[in-house]
């Protein structure tokens, strides 16, 4: 149904009002504010994680990140629950793609995996981390599936479900570990903080990559349905 371009005045006025109110609110702020940066920077120094943002994400506010992983996994599962025909895409992509795409995929995927690993590794000191790595890994997964190296239906098979869940499950296990040692949830012991964070990051990368791949493949799977109508 083609939409005729039109402006509705009331929604427009409402949006403009929101704009004006936000500007007014921001304008009322003082020019400088420290927020929590001082505490956070000091805390990060103490904890040994050089990148403060990573320290905030995985340590100080690790609980947010735990639930955020849950959000991503939940969305993936929600999208999986909406598939009509899980095998539609698999039927369309039946064999390995032609020589060029095959060769390129063979060349790129290992590089992407290395890049993903690198992004995770440098996350502790600079920009990077599980999400960035996971995104690259997810792209690799999609590439593998579309070029026929991996069957798209695998995206919802039992092994894939394990991969999807392993990051969150590991994160939970690591979060619960301190409880046995007398701490609270996510209170990493100081001596093993770095290695635990790294372990979580690596497995999270895997799960995030799997999630993104699954999100793509699950919603791509029944394209033919809509086109048929």
């Amino acid at each position, binding site marked *: 149904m083609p939409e005729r371009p039109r402006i*509705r005045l*009331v*929604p427009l006025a*409402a*949006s403009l*009002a*929101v704009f004006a*109110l936000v500007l007014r*609110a921001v304008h009322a702020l003082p020019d400088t504010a420290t927020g929590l940066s001082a505490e956070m920077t000091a805390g990060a120094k103490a904890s040994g994680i050089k990148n403060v943002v990573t320290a905030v994400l995985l340590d100080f506010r690790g609980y947010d990140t735990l639930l955020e992983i849950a959000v991503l996994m939940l969305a993936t599962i929600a999208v999986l629950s909406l598939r009509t025909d899980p095998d539609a895409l698999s039927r369309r992509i039946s064999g390995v793609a032609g020589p060029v795409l095959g060769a390129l995929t063979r060349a790129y995927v290992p590089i992407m995996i290395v890049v993903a690993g690198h992004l995770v590794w440098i996350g502790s000191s600079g920009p990077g981390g599980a999400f960035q790595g996971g995104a690259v890994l997810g792209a690799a997964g999609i590439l593998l599936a579309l070029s026929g190296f991996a069957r798209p239906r695998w995206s919802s098979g039992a092994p894939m479900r394990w991969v999807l869940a392993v990051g969150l499950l590991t994160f939970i296990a690591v979060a619960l570990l301190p409880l046995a040692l007398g701490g609270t949830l996510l209170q990493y012991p100081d001596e093993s903080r770095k290695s635990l964070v790294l372990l979580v990051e690596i497995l999270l990368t895997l799960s995030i990559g799997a999630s993104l791949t699954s999100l793509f493949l699950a919603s791509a799977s029944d394209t033919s349905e809509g086109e048929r109508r």
Partner: protein
Amino acid sequence: MTPLLPTGGGSLSFALDSVSVPYLFLFGVIWTVSGLYSFVTTPRGARRRIFAYYLPSAIGGVTVALAADAISFYLCFALMALPAWGLITAGGTPEGRRAGAIYLTLTVIGEALLLAALALMAVEAGGLRLDMLVTAMATSPVRDLATGLLLASIALKIGTLPASGILPLSYAYAPAGPASALAGASAKVGALAMLRLLPAGVMPENWAAVVMLAGLTTAFGAAALGILTTTPRAVLGYSSASQMGLVLIAAGAGLADPAAVPLSHAAIIAFSLHHGLAKSALVLGDDIVARTAGRARSLALAGLALPALALVGAPLTSGFVAKYALKDAVYALSGSVPHAVYSLLPWAAVGTAGLMIRFFILTARHAQVAPDTRHRAPAALWGGILVLVAVTCWAWPATWNHHAIEAVLDPRALLTATWPALVALGLTAVVRQTRGVFARLDGALAPGDILVTGARLVRAANAALPSRKPSERVTAETGPQAGRPLLGVEERLVTWVTASTLFVLLAVALVLLATR
């Protein structure tokens, strides 16, 4: 944390005091006898349905006498009143349904008024016990409001004009057993509420005068309405409304004058006992008459005379006792309104006598249903009630029957108690002679009078409301007629653009209010 909190099980407190005893006796007897009567007269298959409503109603109806705090009073009040709807509609007739709907509407409104009154009083009193509530009202700034709400709620319960139709509606369509319980006990809960909740002896004179006049108007008005109806039970219903008007007079007598309070309360109790038992006996007797033939029928009609005469206040009946108690209460007051009420009271008995004559004519006239083979048990139950009607008020260990006992052999008093009945008989004779004039009025009124008319109007108004899209599927689905325009408004309100814009405007409004 706060005394206003219903503290769970502990907040439901019950107590036995001088007010509970007569009401516990009355409600206990009536709900038990009527229950047994229903049991023996209801076919086995229909019992489950009747008793599903009867039992909760009976539990509420009996325990309300014991309720000692606002929450348990409200609980029992509601528990008695609401399931009664199922008893009224038990017949499954359209009239019964309509009666049930009107009854339910008025009852729920009455409940809401009572809740508001109780909450108002509890907040003032800072507690929930009924005696605290009444005491606190004496000096409270919201005294008038709370009293007004209470009186409105009670008026709906006891059928004060213009709501007098509620009683005939609730008696006319229920099976005889439950109807007898409703006739004997339901409106008396209103009397109990007068005793338990109305401020005593602290209100301005005007309040007392207005309440007494309302009672007097109802006493006469309901009698006039009742004479125009054509079913025996509807006549009884209007008679109840009329008699409860007298109880309202008694309650009014106690509102302003502290000296009259004991007399007023005595009169309410006496009237409740007398009228509850007598009315219950009349409803059952009507059913007995319908079940019998020949000599048994004559015997039953003779038996019916006892409660009927009691209502009229004939000498040696319980009505004689109750009327004395009422007169004593009104007599204790000074002022023009009490005097007027006092002098008009005997004339109310003329109305009652007229109603009773009408009831007899209708009962004797109405067709006999197939004789019940098990009519011995119903008859025995009825006989038990008749004995109680005859004895209770005279034998009750209280002070309110002393005056009547003293007067029982005084010829002047006997004459006073008899002439209204004679006048009514005379009037009846006149009416029967000139049938032509009154024939048209006979049956001019359906049970429920203006309430039924009101319900019809509401229905008609609903049907007349313009509908947005007559062809809409809603019509076929028998959606409520009035619903269509409302559904249409909502339909437009929840379209995405409208609704989400409304939300953003709401957010803007909140921000503006917050940063004012």
